């Protein structure tokens, strides 16, 4: 059975490219348009991995991660940030919130799949 990845990004083109890359590698993709939408969709169905942007309206990525980590079902689900942010300060905040990795945009699909496979197989 294909593993499911929740991809959260407010940019339509990014969601399209992420979904395209992950589906081509055999993953199922659930997309969300911001942190709140991501949180709602994560609660509807526990996914195998969360891939999220940071700067989004309504709820940012770090806040969503903090909320997800407070849920019993998301204590151990890997969460990766995929963002334009690249500073050590932001990465440290991500790590503290519970992220398991940091990918700086733009992403290379081949590299993204390698990382996802390494994290969830």
């Amino acid at each position, binding site marked *: 059975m294909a593993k499911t990845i929740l991809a959260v990004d407010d940019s339509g083109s990014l969601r399209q*490219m992420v979904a395209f890359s992950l589906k081509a590698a055999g993953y199922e993709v659930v997309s969300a348009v911001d942190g709140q939408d991501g949180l709602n969709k994560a609660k509807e169905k526990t996914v195998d991995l969360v891939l999220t942007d940071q700067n989004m309206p309504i709820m940012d990525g770090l806040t969503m991660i903090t909320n997800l980590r407070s849920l019993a079902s998301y204590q151990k689900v890997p969460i990766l940030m995929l963002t334009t942010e690249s500073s050590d300060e932001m990465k440290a905040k991500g790590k503290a919130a519970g992220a398991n*990795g940091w990918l700086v945009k*733009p992403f290379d699909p081949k590299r993204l799949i390698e990382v996802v496979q390494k994290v969830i197989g």
Partner: protein
Amino acid sequence: MKGNKLAPKNLPVAELRQLLTAVSDHGTQHLHEVEADLNQTAFLLTGAIEKLGESFMAIHAAVNHQQDEIDTLLIEAEVPEASYQKILLLRKQIADEVNAAVTGLQFQDMTSQLIERVIKRIDGLRESLIALSVHGEDMNPDHEHQEIVKLLAEMSAGLHLRNDALKGGLRKSVQQHDMRSGDVELF
């Protein structure tokens, strides 16, 4: 009149008010044009990425179908080894180009964040210019010298405050200067 001090009645308050109003009006007008151009640019970029994304998906689907047909032909027909190898090479080249296109098609996410930041800066600058004009209107030719000095000091302090507030709300989230793929770090 001693030194460069002006007697209250000689202060060019009317001219100062006129100058502040002109700076504010002209500045606001130009900022309005800049903002309109940026919004138009953002709109065009959004339209462009939507069309590019749709075309990319359609081309990719067509190429996949074409490759499936070629696979069928390769099974059914006798194909010279050289042709077979050439087809494999082209297939790899297409896959590499698809990857490169996916990376390139992410430009709008970054440009939209940068444009959003510029528009926030324009809003802040516009507010400062409007404040200049409003303070200018508070000046009166009948004001004492010290009152004018106080008003100017308040204007200056207000501008500094607005500037600091603007800087605080404008953290730069996009440092990229090209479309090379970014770093990856697992914690």
